[in-house]
């Protein structure tokens, strides 16, 4: 049978759009009215959602800050390639250029034997002893900065192995093991934050779902009347969806404020600890994407929780009496 068209579907598109906006405004106002009608219950729901979102958000801020602090460790990933003694400088420079052309290499810096000796003289404090040697025992070297970060140790291992295989190379030295370990710990915390985020997102769905379920039950009589008058499930569902979105949005706001408060509260002691080690490091506020995730993810979870619950509940409310 052909689809039955209701009165609204027979109206011009512009008028239908206007009615659509009117109905959404009415549904949003209705949802706000319901939330304000039970302020304590609504506040508790929002607080629970806010706290649930705060835990993974705080971990995410810790990860962001630890990664920021680790930015200065890039040099620790440099690979020192010592060339065979007696290799002509021109050939050494050509080799440095060839290595720099590799896709997995960010930059190279050639250090001639003379430059190497000068650097060694500066930081070792053995200048007088070196003079006794009479000549320069140091080979030329290439300092290679890999494109890969510490989170991709296999790529760095491949690069080191390739460099070792070059005929002009005598020795390859990589001291970035501790950076790798540090990075692994950050990655582990990030993974925990992701898992917690997923679990607590599920919890938010359940919290919103349960709140909306109670709300639907409280308005059962009204819903039944609306259905008798020809209201579609979509029409009946709308105010509950706005309710879910509002819970999620307010929960996201609470969470953002709590995380900001934690950063302010924890920033002082961390900054003082860093200063004790001669660092100017300061705890960074939650990044823009994280704030957007909280303010966008909260309403999305609220909508999903409300949608799933109302869809299931409305199927159970039929005005026929269920005979």
């Amino acid at each position: 049978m052909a689809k039955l068209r209701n009165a609204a579907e027979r109206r011009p598109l512009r008028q239908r759009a206007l009615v659509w906006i009117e109905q959404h405004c009415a549904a949003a106002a209705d949802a706000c009215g319901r939330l304000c009608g039970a302020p304590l219950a609504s506040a508790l729901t929002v607080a629970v959602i806010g706290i649930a979102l705060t835990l993974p958000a705080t971990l995410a801020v810790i990860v962001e800050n630890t990664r920021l602090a680790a930015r200065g460790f890039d040099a620790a990933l440099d690979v020192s390639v010592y060339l065979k003694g007696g290799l002509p400088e021109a050939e050494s420079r050509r080799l440095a250029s060839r290595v720099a052309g590799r896709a997995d290499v960010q930059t190279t810096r050639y250090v001639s034997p003379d430059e190497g000796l000068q650097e060694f003289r500066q930081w070792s404090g053995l200048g007088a002893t070196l003079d006794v040697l009479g000549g320069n025992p140091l080979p030329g070297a290439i300092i290679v900065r890999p494109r890969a970060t510490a989170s991709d140790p296999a790529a760095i291992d491949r690069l080191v192995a390739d460099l070792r295989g070059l005929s002009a190379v005598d020795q390859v030295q990589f001291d970035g093991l501790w950076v790798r370990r540090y990075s692994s710990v950050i990655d582990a915390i990030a993974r925990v934050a992701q898992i917690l985020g997923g679990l607590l997102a599920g919890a938010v769905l359940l919290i919103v779902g349960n709140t909306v379920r109670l709300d639907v039950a409280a308005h059962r009589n009204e819903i039944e009347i609306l259905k008798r008058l020809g209201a579609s499930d979509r029409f009946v569902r709308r105010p509950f969806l706005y309710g879910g979105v509002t819970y999620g949005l307010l929960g996201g706001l609470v969470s953002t404020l709590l995380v900001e408060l934690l950063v302010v509260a924890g920033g002082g002691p961390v900054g003082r600890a860093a200063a004790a080690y001669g660092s100017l490091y300061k705890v960074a506020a939650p990044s823009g994407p994280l704030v957007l995730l909280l303010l966008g993810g909260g309403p999305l979870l609220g909508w999903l929780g409300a949608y799933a619950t109302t869809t299931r509940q409305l199927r159970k409310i039929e005005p026929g009496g269920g005979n």
Partner: protein
Amino acid sequence: MIRFEHVEKRYVTGRAALTNFDLEVGVGELVFLTGPSGAGKSTALKLVGLLERPTGGRIVVGGIDLTQVERQDVPAYRQRVGMVFQDHRLLLARTVWDNVALPLIVAGTPRRELKSRLRAALDQVGLHGHEQQRALELSGGEQQRVGIARALVAGPDVLIADEPTGNLDPTLALEIMRLLVAVAQAGVTVLVASHDVHLIAPLGARRLSLDAGRVVGDAVG
């Protein structure tokens, strides 16, 4: 307008509410379904309002075969049928205006059209001036008139009323029945379930007598 063809309605409990039920009602006709409790009056109305589905036979209302209406099309169909109930089914905390406006809002009527149509419906049932009163504050008869205004406001082709005078005293009951007669005279097909034969006899309308889910009499007056 309304045609029942060998309609059967059996509930999951096994009880047969309607058996081999045939009925034909023309456009603008007023038909009373009478009979004792359990005769099948309310079930017949529920089937016309698509509040229930028949377990056998065929029902056609305004050219629409109700046995073929898909679940997602039920709301669009119900918007074409006005329904009045014994217990009024009003939102008691809301105003008369809010209650009567519901079918128009549900049907997607623009806000600027509401006023004139609501006034017309309230005038029709004699409730002009009660717009801002809450339904809770009205008498039983007034509440029923609100129910009738709500059923009429969207301009339905069919009006079904299930024991609309069940909770009213005889004077108010007669007033409501006369109102339904006027609605039918305006061209709306009206189907009313009532067990009160004394009340409907003076109206001179068609009366269908039911018993145990079967039609046992079809007479006028």
